[in-house]
């Protein structure tokens, strides 16, 4: 299980960073900076490495650094790997970005004061993940100061070993953790759920921190290079909503199930349409419909199509496109980011009503 996590932590995007032409004051202009950016890292953390490269060319003034890709200002609090997966559908290597040291677009981007801002955003997300998993932020808030420093440094330096040591104190085991064990023993089947935890103390139901970045197309594309370029954040639907896992006997909760559960407007995922009407306490809970128990996976996938108005065209996580039938818990456990969120880029294709064209 360590293997996949190691690859994720070692993953990096080669960047070629160009100084924006309006800020070049020297002749000849400076060459672009080449840097390997960790997938799980954040662009502002690269600034200390980039700045020396350009500082002699900059106009006088105070630095307010921001990055853009093809005119789109980049949201600095989104991990670098996610930005790349989302905005570079056909992966571009190196990824050509433009850096600005002036003219921060404060009406579009929230302010960034370097490493401190990134660290704060990271801790904030970690608290949110903790709340989603445990129902409170206590573990994160009560972490000792040295441990907090150690945790941040492990992320900053991409040190997985150090990270695992500190993060285990946070007790952020997610629902479905036991699936990892099942996977290695060759079985994908979940055990019977008797409420939140069963006799062995493993979590069966629960919430998983997920951030979904969805964009849509109306036409099919066979090659990724034909996919439309995202030129505005308004074209991306950002869904910061936990996936709710309900352990079901004899049924594996797949990555596809998880994605569709977060998009109820487009996919009729039966067991979760009852989610909103049931509360965790007091009232009688609506039982998850048991009629699905008999379906096998391919039937289930096909049955989603006729009643849905969209099709999942692409799912990209940590730069890979996992098979959609993979158990969701495995995906979470191995591909999540250090703040315990799983970031998923999804492209949906919508069927449009064809308007007959007049001859």
């Amino acid at each position, binding site marked *: 299980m360590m293997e996949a996590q190691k690859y994720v932590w070692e993953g990096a995007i080669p960047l070629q960073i160009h100084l924006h032409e309006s800020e070049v004051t020297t002749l000849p202009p400076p060459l672009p900076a080449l840097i390997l950016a960790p997938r799980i890292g954040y662009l502002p953390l690269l600034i200390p490495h980039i700045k020396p490269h350009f500082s002699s060319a900059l106009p006088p003034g105070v630095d307010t650094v921001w990055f853009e890709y093809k005119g789109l200002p980049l949201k600095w609090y989104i991990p670098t790997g996610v930005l790349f997966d989302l905005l570079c559908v056909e992966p571009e290597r190196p990824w050509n970005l433009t850096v600005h040291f002036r003219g921060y677009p404060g009406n579009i981007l*929230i302010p960034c004061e370097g490493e401190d801002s990134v660290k704060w955003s990271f801790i904030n997300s970690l608290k*949110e993940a903790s*709340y989603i998993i445990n129902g409170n932020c206590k573990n994160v808030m009560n972490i000792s100061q040295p441990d907090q420093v150690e945790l941040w440094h492990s992320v900053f330096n991409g040190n997985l070993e150090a990270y695992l040591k500190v993060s285990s104190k946070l007790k952020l085991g997610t629902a479905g953790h036991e699936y990892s064990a099942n996977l290695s023993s060759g079985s994908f089947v979940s055990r019977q759920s008797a409420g939140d935890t069963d006799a062995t103390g493993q979590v069966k139901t629960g919430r998983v921190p997920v951030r979904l970045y969805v964009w849509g197309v109306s036409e099919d594309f066979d090659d990724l290079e034909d996919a439309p370029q995202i030129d505005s954040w308004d074209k991306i*639907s950002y869904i910061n909503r*936990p996936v709710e896992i309900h352990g079901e006997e004899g049924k594996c909760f797949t990555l596809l199930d998880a994605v569709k559960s977060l998009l109820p*407007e487009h996919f009729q995922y039966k067991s979760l349409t009852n*989610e909103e009407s049931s509360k965790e306490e007091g*009232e009688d809970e609506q039982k998850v419909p048991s009629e699905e128990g008999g379906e096998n996976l391919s039937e289930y996938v096909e049955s989603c199509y006729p009643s849905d108005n969209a099709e999942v065209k692409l799912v990209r996580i940590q730069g890979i496109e996992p098979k959609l039938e993979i158990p969701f818990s495995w995906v979470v456990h191995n591909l999540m980011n250090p703040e315990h969120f799983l970031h998923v880029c999804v492209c949906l294709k919508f069927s449009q009503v064809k308007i007959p064209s007049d001859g």
Partner: protein
Amino acid sequence: MDISSWDGTISLAEFHAAACALVEKWKKVSSASPPWSWVSCPKQPWVASHEVSVEGYLSLENIILVSIKEEHDELPSFPQKEETSCSDKEESIDIATLVQGQSDHDEICYYDLHIVYSAPYRVPVLYFRVYYSDGEPLQFEDIKKHLPAHSAKTLLDSKWTFITQEEHPYLNRPWYKLHPCGTGEWMKLLFQGDVSLARNGAAIEVYLISWLSFVGQVVGLRIPYEMLNQL
């Protein structure tokens, strides 16, 4: 609703129901002041929404709020003790939000308030913007000066966990946000502290109004007295 096992949070559908109730009641009770409205947000902007969506947020925009520095002693505090907002001796301002004429500040500031549901925390969250009449946004330091005194103090004590500047979940722009971390806990305390609220079968409608009566204090939004008179 069984209060003892409730954790103070609500679902998206409940938020939507509570929001609709708030909009209706506010209109009835406070017809002279600007109304809250529900802004529907289909999650996928490129697809026309044919159905009524429960996704969305409450909006109250372009309002002027009184700075109530001198009144802070009278305001109900966040629930540490049993309290009901409606029985406190508050200023009897029916029209809570509009100020007629000049305030005592250099310039009049306008607020946009949005109440957005947070799926991770399962509670409402207040997002707000403050700007001058020419549309120029206030800097954080200036916003602090315009906030009621007691919330400015809390702000100074714990800046990073109280008001933060984050991206609006729907609008792709920076807004100020009140951090939702403890909301579930104090909403539970609030309901536990008020027997009448707990008994009330329409508790979900009361939830949002009660929430707003506390959270609104941060920016100086006063809830019309009649809104709190539920039973």
